[in-house]
């Protein structure tokens, strides 16, 4: 059991030192899954056979000195909207209930090349649309910190699998907070990098202009390490940014170089707008305490007005729904996935397939997206939202002219109880208030544990950086984590 307590980097070091093996680590994870999965339900697919085979192969290559990277031999969980060759990939939707990709996402390829062992595919909100992992067609995931509560979403399965030790690290995707919010609810570290940092090739698109893949890990070091392994310039993705180039201010890919315990002189802005009405008192307290820790370590903290915060959610839902309505048109029962059993002609086949294949939240967003793009509404809704996006980006530009990092909560509350959120969609959408503007502006954001509420549910601290300034976020988060009782020491 002790093995499961290790971080990913610690585990890989132990394997390289010959103190354990990739196979033992994989077996330990599989045993944990055997024990807790019936309650947590983190996975849609557990690839026991494939993982063990891979672990043996990786172990041999580590022993042969071929695999020397910091994540070699580490069991990893992959969100089920990332394509994995020959392994079922469902997006937690019935419409992809039988879809076996013929290629792997670029991020997954990078990870496999580094010798990580894929344990399985994690549960999520259907097509990443949701904040609780309750819209999955394959059942809800429970929060390992308190199984009466949701793990957050949409990368809820990945966050829960890390928190519940059903893997050592996991991949998620973040379109409006889908990594940072479940990280907050499950008490793990989660990061959404700058748009374009990790290739989207092989990520099944929700909102293409907002989607980014990112790590969910036990601590900041694992987070930086996993990011470093996954990130790459990919010519297959036209929106991939070469971080060695001028557009990315030559910021590079050496994220682990920022694991430095030093925030002296770091300018941190605290947006007043993030601490207003709707924020849970306990969350406010924990986040402000974290700010104090950083101040004590030499950071310069200042309150400021970010502005436009209330407009981020309506702009986000307009853009995301519009893109989703188009991205999800390809699921039509012709090339892959579910096709309805009986139909009368082509259009009836389309309609029945899609109506039976998609769940209610996905349908809701597809219809909204089709509407805001339809003739007569495009300017008033879609273009308007893109204009607001430009204003939001400008507001952040102004903030980052003054601050290195913006600090605030990741979510207004701790994890809600199961079954409480879906009834009122607007209220559920409001839960994304602190996360969505980061996606609209393409910024990096990291979330790490900074406390618990009276029920013992984790509270997350969010740090937001300017585009390509992941290293400042990692450095700040790392420095905080060193002083925090909720970092690496926070385990069940």
């Amino acid at each position, binding site marked *: 059991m002790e093995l499961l307590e290790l971080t990913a980097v610690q585990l890989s070091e132990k394997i390289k030192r010959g103190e354990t093996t990739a196979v033992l680590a994989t077996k330990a994870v599989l045993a944990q899954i055997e024990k807790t999965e019936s309650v947590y339900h983190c996975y849609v697919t557990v690839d026991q056979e494939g993982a063990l085979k891979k672990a043996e192969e990786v172990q041999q290559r580590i022993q042969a000195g071929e695999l020397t990277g910091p994540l070699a031999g580490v069991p990893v969980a992959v969100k089920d909207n*990332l*394509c994995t060759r020959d392994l079922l*990939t469902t*997006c937690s939707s019935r419409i*992809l209930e039988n*879809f076996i*990709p*013929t*290629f792997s*996402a670029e991020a997954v390829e990078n990870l496999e090349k580094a010798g990580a062992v894929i344990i399985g595919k994690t549960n999520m909100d259907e097509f990443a649309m949701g904040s609780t992992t309750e819209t999955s067609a394959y059942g809800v995931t429970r929060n390992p910190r308190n199984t009466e509560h949701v793990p957050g979403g949409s990368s809820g399965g990945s966050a829960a699998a890390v928190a519940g030790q059903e893997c050592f690290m996991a991949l998620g995707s973040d379109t409006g907070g889908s990594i940072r919010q479940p990280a907050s609810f499950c008490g793990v570290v989660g990061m959404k990098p700058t748009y374009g940092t990790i290739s*989207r*090739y*092989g*990520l*099944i*698109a929700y*909102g*293409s*202009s907002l989607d980014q893949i990112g790590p969910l890990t036990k601590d900041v070091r694992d987070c930086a390490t996993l990011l470093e392994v996954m990130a790459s310039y990919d*010519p*297959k*993705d*036209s*929106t991939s940014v070469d971080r060695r180039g001028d557009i990315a201010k030559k910021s590079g890919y050496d994220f682990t170089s920022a694991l430095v315990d030093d925030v002296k002189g770091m300018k941190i802005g605290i947006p007043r707008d993030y601490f207003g009405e709707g924020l849970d008192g306990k969350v406010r307290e924990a986040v402000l305490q974290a700010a104090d820790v950083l101040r004590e370590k030499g950071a310069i903290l200042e309150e400021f007005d970010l502005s436009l915060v209330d407009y981020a959610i309506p702009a986000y839902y307009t853009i995301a729904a*519009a*893109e989703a*309505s*188009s991205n999800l*048109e*390809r*699921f*039509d029962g*012709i*090339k*892959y996935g579910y096709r309805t059993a009986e139909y009368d002609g*082509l*259009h009836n086949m*389309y309609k029945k397939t899609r109506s039976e294949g998609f769940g209610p939240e996905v349908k809701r967003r597809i219809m909204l997206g*089709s509407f805001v*793009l*339809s*003739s007569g509404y*495009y300017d008033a809704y*879609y273009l308007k939202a893109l204009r607001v996006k430009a204003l939001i980006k400008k507001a952040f530009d102004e903030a980052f002219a003054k601050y290195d990092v913006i600090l605030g909560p990741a979510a207004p509350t701790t994890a809600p109880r199961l079954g409480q959120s879906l009834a009122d969609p607007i209220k559920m959408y409001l839960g994304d208030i602190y996360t969505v503007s980061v996606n609209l502006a393409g910024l990096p954001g990291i979330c790490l544990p900074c406390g618990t509420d009276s029920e013992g549910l984790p509270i997350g601290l969010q740090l937001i950086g300017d585009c390509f300034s992941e290293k400042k976020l990692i450095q700040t988060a790392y420095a905080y984590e060193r002083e925090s009782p909720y970092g690496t020491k926070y385990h069940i």
Partner: protein
Amino acid sequence: MSKQYETVIGLEVHVELATKTKIFCGCSTAFGGAPNTHTCPVCTGMPGSLPVLNKQVLEYVIAVGLATNCEISHYSKFDRKNYFYPDNPQNYQISQLYLPICHDGGVEIETEEGKKIVGIHEIHMEEDAGKLVHDDWEDCTMVDYNRSGVPLIEIVSEPDMRSAEEVIAYLEKLRLLIQYLGASDCKLQEGSMRADVNLSIREAGAEKMGTRTEMKNLNSFKAIARAIEGERERQIDLLEEGKEVIQETRRWDDNKEYSYAMRSKEDAQDYRYFPDPDLAPIIVSDELLREIKSKEPEFPTEKMIRYKEEYGIPDYDIEILTNTKHTADLFEETVALGADPKKVSNWLMGETMRLLKENAMEPEAICFSPENLAKLIQLVDSKAINSTVAKEVFQEMFHHDIDPEQYVEEKGLKTVNDQGALRKTIEEVMARNPKSVEDYHNGKTKAIGALVGQTMKAMQGKADPALINQILQELL
């Protein structure tokens, strides 16, 4: 019909570009191949796949834009056109609506009333759809994505044409320019050039445009001409009966010479265009423009001027030769091999055109090489064969691209240059045709022609007619 009507026509011309690969993936654009063998995750819309633009597509469309006097957009984007249909694997087509790459151009055409400019509203890039094959036995449709993602440019004209003749002149002009650029072979029958016709009718002199219909499925100049005539009549009939023309898309059936409305409750015709978030915008720098301009070929008008100066061949020849890039290239390459321009032109204008017409072939289908044409001319020049034999050899060359030297050798078609043998044959011919000899002596000098012909026949064509003439003169 009491009233006079004017036909107003605009065209949307789709041209398949001659790239090696598709517009957004590295799949081959080669024709044929078993279904779905030229496909990949991108051009079959697999989840997670992403498009990346083929640079050659941009270079071709800009070249076409420059050749048609368009302005090239400094900033251009791709948009998604959303509609469900199985030939389109993503159920959206990547195209350009808001910021097309080329706009506001035009080409000059010749009409009965003289020269006229047909305006070009825009030219944009987009992807082609897959192929649907209907299986009548099984009552289903088979989908093949080999053509899905083949690059197209769509050339949208202004409603500036007034007759089928103008439409065809416009299409021929476009085809000529695009073929010269090497951007496409523009074959209507094979679908690498396709035209949709937007047509409306208004009373002569009226300012306001009538309601237009769009006709699809036109795959030859003849079909286009018939469709325009048919649709014009249909719309006039409606107006005469006091009915309204409905704005709709119609499919022309060339066999039945009638167009049918393509309407369905399920076609909302609301494409919900929006900028494709998966593709980066395009900025056409001055440098890129210069680069493309520097690769620009010589166009027909420039060629015509140069041919006149350099080759001294008749204007009529020049016009025909430059009318397709293929004949112009053939002409120039043969001359470059040392052949006399006038002689090359004669072969291309005479025998070549005759055989093309006889076999109902397009000039693009000419298969013989400039090397072989030059050799043939050389054989005639050196009097190795005479012109009758040369025509025979040419016919072989036209159909099978044979090497004329080798062919003449193998078939023993060389002119007999043995003067003694020729003299002997002529003497025999004269002996057999005393009437002709007498006629000649009586001043009917034309009678010599019959003797030359008889001699040639006796020589099985393998003689130099000038030499026969010379010997005959002596003997007579």
